[in-house]
């Protein structure tokens, strides 16, 4: 058989390779001598492998399919349908795609490199007119949703609006005032005046800042923890 000086990379896949073989050997696609084609295909695969080139699984898959068709053709019983039919259909479909690709290639040569321009910028103010019904409709739909999920009530947010908030800054002053006498204060006593979790968090954050900046010393004695204000910064540590 003629040497196959074909390179793998030039084929898009097994169908592409098969079509080339068919074309090269002037095989009638509607009456493929499957044994011959399989032999050629396999020897191509073998040759590629002998160069230690990696073969995609698609090529291997096709090899087994061809072998399967070949074996079916050898059966003494005539199968109801030509075992080659599926392969032939696939080859014909793929050939159509290749022809279409060729057409597109020609068009691309002529037209692909036409460039368009980005749209000019506008201020983008929306100026379409709508009926207000659209809004009420949307709101009505939302109304249903609010009723379905009562935990998402508006009050949840109202609380946030009404509740007093404490800043860490104000609590730093609070803590400094609290410890002003420089005597030992029990750790927990600092939080005695706190009414909410938010306030406790603010005081604690304030304390952390003061400790970090060396204004407050935390002393541990046995199971008790005390806080002491440091007036002379050099005493810190």
């Amino acid at each position, binding site marked *: 058989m003629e040497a196959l000086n074909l390179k793998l990379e030039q084929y898009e896949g097994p169908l592409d390779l098969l079509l080339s073989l068919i074309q090269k050997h002037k095989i009638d696609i509607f009456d493929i001598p499957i044994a011959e084609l399989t032999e050629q295909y396999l020897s191509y695969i073998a040759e590629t492998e002998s160069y230690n080139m990696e073969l995609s699984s698609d090529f291997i898959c096709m090899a087994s399919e061809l072998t399967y068709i070949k074996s079916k053709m050898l059966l003494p019983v005539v199968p109801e349908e030509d075992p080659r039919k599926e392969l032939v259909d696939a080859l014909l479909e793929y050939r159509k795609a290749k022809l279409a690709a060729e057409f597109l290639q020609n068009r691309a040569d002529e037209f692909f490199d036409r460039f368009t321009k*980005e749209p000019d910028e506008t201020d983008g103010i929306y100026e379409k007119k709508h009926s207000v019904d659209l*809004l009420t409709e949307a709101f009505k739909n939302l109304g249903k949703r609010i009723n379905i999920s009562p935990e998402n009530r508006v009050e949840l947010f109202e609380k946030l609006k009404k509740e007093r908030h404490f800043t860490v800054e104000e609590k730093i002053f609070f803590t400094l005032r609290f410890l002003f006498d420089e005597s030992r204060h029990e750790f927990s006593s600092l939080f005695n005046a706190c009414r909410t979790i938010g306030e406790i968090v603010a005081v604690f954050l304030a304390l952390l800042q003061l400790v970090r900046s060396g204004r407050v010393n935390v002393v541990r004695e046995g199971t008790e923890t005390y806080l002491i204000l440091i007036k002379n910064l050099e005493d810190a540590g």
Partner: protein
Amino acid sequence: MNPTQLDAALEAVLFASGSPVSLEKLSEIFCTDKTETADSAARVANRLEDGGHGIELIFVDGSYQLCTKACFAEHVKKALELRKTPPLTKASLEVLAVVSYNQPVTKSFIETIRGVDSDGIVNSLCDKGLIRECGHLDAPGRPTLFGTTESFLRCFGLESISRLPKIDLEEQITLLPDDMELTAKGQL
């Protein structure tokens, strides 16, 4: 390239660039000297001056640019608006409904009501000029508050926010009285 080809190439380059291109850069692209390039630009500018052309070539700050002639601004604006404003989506309308009926509101309020992240929609409605930032809530993090704009009123034919139809919790919409509807229409 002969002068005609250079003119055409210059037009193509300026068109695709959209923004101004310097004389130097153009000369570099075409491998021409600056005088040649400037001459070509002058020819293109000259030809575009013809009343049948809607674009012109302008020279600003050492750079050339193609732009639409000012006299067509109205048509251009109309075209860009038509293009830029696909109708409001259902999600956008929902956000607008929440904002218009409850303003001023924060993003998290909108999200609580809608049950979904609404960040992108809020931003796009701001870009469209239908809602705007209008202060901060006196709460942790000082979240931004949003309210509707005059464009919003114009867009929905409302004289003021108080003209929004009342909606009661039975999900019944109290319709606008007839005369009010007329006023609203008058705004269109």
